[in-house]
């Protein structure tokens, strides 16, 4: 019986479980596909309902993880193969070369400016560019850049560029680093792979991708963030002006995915608050159908913002929302509470798009041999009520990999998974 634990995903659920298991003396392998740990929370400058600073919430946890001797953090890594059964899993992990030595690099950032390559920064929701050697965002932890081998002129064979290595005073750039396949043995696995958001570019009626003033909720989070693409200035991507009127659309894609994402109503209220805070004269509308506030604290937060920041407009049919460009403005038309078609003109639209299973998680769940539900989330075993057990003994699920949920529910699942693992040995 092996006591080690593999945790896949380093969001709040994965980090919380890692620290707890380490405290109980277990060796933890924390695998993260990105070059930084922390998950989605750090994309939000402030998190609801008490609007505490997300970095302040997460950074100490990230630091604890990185300094913990029982936790082996594997970034830019993915799980390739899993063999064996509960108590004795053999796991093959594909660890991509970072090309920057984690021990030598200090995170001073001197290597970025000389890099001649520019590419889109997906972590910043495509709202800005990054170099071929980059950290996804200011404040990334570990504070060590990664070199994109496909884009780097030297690594992709275009030319003998050596500019980042020349700029590094610590000799931390290492072009000879190779991708590795690492095999680890563990007794249990926690799947904490999180979520992504629904691609709304296919939804004709919303104009996303065609009308530049239409943003997704995560794009807006980055726009608002002081470490984001505009350093927190709320300016539109084309005009570079601040919007004077904004429509926030709840429940985007809900009927396409078939479930409520449970957090959008509260974060959409938060977005109204953000807008009012930075643009006090802006006119803000929240278009809702059902308001879902599933925590004792959420209604108070909702009412406070509804009172001063925004006008809540009921739309009778979520699927009849239509967003089109009308001159310099955006027209949002909807079916109102009297069942009549109505509309408002705004400068900016924020879509609260549904949470969906994380990209490429289907492959991973197949590799792990665990069942998913009809939506693609990990199916928890309903014969054990409220369980974090998956269909395969020894493999547990926590956080949004199991379905949409808020931060506290993710943490609770992580802690429940820890209990399941520790009570077995």
């Amino acid at each position, binding site marked *: 019986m092996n006591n080690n634990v593999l945790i896949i995903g380093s969001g709040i659920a994965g980090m919380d479980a890692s620290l707890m298991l380490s405290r109980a003396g277990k060796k933890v392998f924390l695998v993260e596909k990105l070059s930084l740990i922390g998950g989605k929370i750090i994309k939000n400058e402030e998190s609801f309902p008490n609007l505490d600073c997300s970095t302040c919430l997460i950074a100490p946890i990230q630091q604890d993880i990185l300094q913990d001797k029982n936790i082996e953090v594997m970034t830019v890594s993915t799980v390739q193969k899993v063999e064996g059964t509960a108590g004795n899993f053999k796991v093959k992990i594909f660890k991509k070369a970072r090309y920057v030595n984690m021990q030598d690099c200090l995170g001073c950032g001197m290597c970025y400016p000389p890099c001649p390559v520019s590419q889109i920064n997906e972590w910043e929701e495509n709202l800005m560019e990054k170099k071929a050697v980059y950290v996804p965002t200011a404040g990334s932890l570990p504070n060590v850049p990664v070199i994109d081998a496909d884009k780097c002129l030297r690594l992709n064979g275009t030319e003998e560029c050596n500019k980042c290595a020349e700029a590094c005073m610590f000799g931390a750039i290492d072009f000879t680093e190779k991708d590795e396949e690492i095999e680890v043995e563990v007794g249990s696995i926690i799947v904490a792979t999180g979520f992504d958001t629904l691609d709304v570019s296919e939804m004709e009626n919303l104009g996303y991708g065609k009308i530049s003033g239409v943003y997704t909720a995560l794009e807006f989070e980055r726009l608002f963030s002081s470490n984001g693409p505009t350093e927190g200035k709320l300016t539109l991507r084309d005009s570079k002006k601040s919007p004077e009127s904004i429509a926030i659309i709840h429940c985007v894609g809900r009927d396409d995915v078939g479930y409520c994402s449970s957090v959008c109503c509260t974060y959409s209220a938060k977005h109204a608050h953000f807008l009012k805070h930075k643009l006090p004269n802006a006119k803000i509308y929240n278009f809702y159908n059902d308001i879902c*506030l599933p925590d004792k604290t959420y209604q108070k937060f909702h009412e406070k913002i509804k009172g001063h920041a925004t006008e809540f407009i009921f739309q009778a049919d979520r699927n009849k929302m239509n967003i089109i460009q009308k001159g310099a403005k955006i027209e949002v038309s909807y079916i109102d509470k009297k069942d009549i078609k109505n509309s408002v003109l705004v400068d900016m639209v924020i879509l609260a798009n549904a949470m969906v299973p994380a990209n490429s998680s289907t492959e991973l769940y197949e590799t792990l041999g665990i069942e998913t539900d009809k939506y693609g989330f990990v199916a928890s075993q309903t014969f054990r009520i409220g369980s974090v057990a998956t269909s395969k003994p020894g493999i547990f699920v926590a956080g949004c990999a199991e379905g949409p949920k808020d931060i506290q529910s993710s943490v609770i699942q992580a802690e429940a998974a820890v209990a399941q693992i520790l009570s077995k040995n």
Partner: protein
Amino acid sequence: MSDKIGIYVCECGPNIASRVHIDKIMEDLAKLEDFKDKELVIKNHKLLCSVDGKKFLEDEINENGFSHLVLAACSPRDHDTTFINVCKKTKLNPYMYRIINIREQCAWVYSDKDVATEKAVRYIHAGMNRVLYQKPLNETELDSNPDVLVIGGGTTGIEAALSSAGENRKIFLIEKEENLGDLTSKLKELLPRQGSNLNVLKQRISDVQNNKNIRIFTNTELESIVGFLGNFEIVLKNKKSDETTELLVGAVVMANGAELQNPQELTDFNFQNDDNVFTAQEVEEMFSQSDKLTLRNGNEPKSVALVHCVGRKDLGYCSKICCNYLQKIAHYINEQSNNIEITEFYKHLCLPNKEDQEYHQKITDKVNFVRITDISLCGTELNLTKINGENSTLKPDMVILATGIIPAKDNPKFAKMLKVDLDERGFFNEAHLKKDPISTNTDGVFIAGTTKGPAGISESILQAQACAGKILTQLIPGQKIIPEVMVSEILEAYCRGCKTCLDVCGFGAIYFDEDKGVSIVNEAICRGCGNCVGSCPSGSIRTKYFTNPQLYQEVKEALR
């Protein structure tokens, strides 16, 4: 022993070195008037946090035998722990060291190198002043008891007991009523999120009864509790026999549940006991017992109105589970007969789990859903305003009310005993709503289920398991507990016994000694937050490592 102070300036590669004059800093420090009779060792290093740097520092401390150490480097958030760990390997007590941040606070914030240098000298000088007033502090180890008291024998408490129990950990499960799992026994079916098999829940009751590591006390209440994580002394009292039991536990799980609001206390809902107005819980029980919905006269109703969000307006929060269980009741009624007309009156549907919407959609063509903005009740007569502004009145045969979940009446009593905060609604408060949602402000006291707010069965069970997760990581059998070192202490001679500090302590770490007439800090509980220090009118409290002389010595130079 005479003072010998080690001062090490980290260059942080180019981060500090390129923005301040390192040599000038070292020269200025060597010339300080007020330190001329002290022995100083002043050196720089390229990168103190590196493997080489740490080894260098360790050797330097050992060779020089410093009495005090000042490191001028980065933010303590980055590397304070790193250097504390270096000190721990040497003879130097780690509380005789101080890190000074000359990177974020000097090097990185000035374009003028001379200004940054001058400020760095001042800050380091301030740190040197401070360390002279620091005292060695030593970590102590305390024995801890791994056993657990679970308060409440409902589904949540049962789960907490089963998930925590083990060979080396006994669980004492107390329930104030006669039986365990009372609420579960009143259910007919479960919701999709909760699994399809109600027997699983019922099985848990016999599991807990048959578990030799779990001792069950029914008809029992908590009489008293004193102590802290790992060491709580508890007294249990049997309500019937008045017999008391004294036990020692390491942790407590609060799972005393919640109550349902009485709709007759609401101004908008006027009805008598013999009216055909029922709460959803009464209806669930009716189905569970007789599998049939009947009016008070025994006949089947022809029309039933289900009213959502009863009392929510007054409560100010969503009870989270009502939309789902009303769907369940609609399913029951529809299964009983297609001829019963079902109408649901709601403002918003709250379906927060991934299983909920599909379940709701299965019933939508069998139920008339009416969205309203307001509703009031007189007997079974409903007066309502629809979302489009129309008013209407109707009188169905039967009305079923989804009433709000409210905190249990004995929460304040428990909160006082356990020294745990309640929130503004009267539910137990989380240590941190997001990152520590089942812990409380008292270490070793955990909360699960509706004791901390509205929650469904599956959610309550997860919370109970999460409590077990915390207990299994914080109270490992045989492992000692190391309490906080930087705690408050009260100078008895100065204490006037005003008890202000007892009110401001968020951890219940201070108690009052009636004989001496002074407040006393329990160092095992204190976290060193300093609230009491600020509140004390006679200045008799100080927090170790943050004493007034230490802070004054630092500030007087920094603000000079």
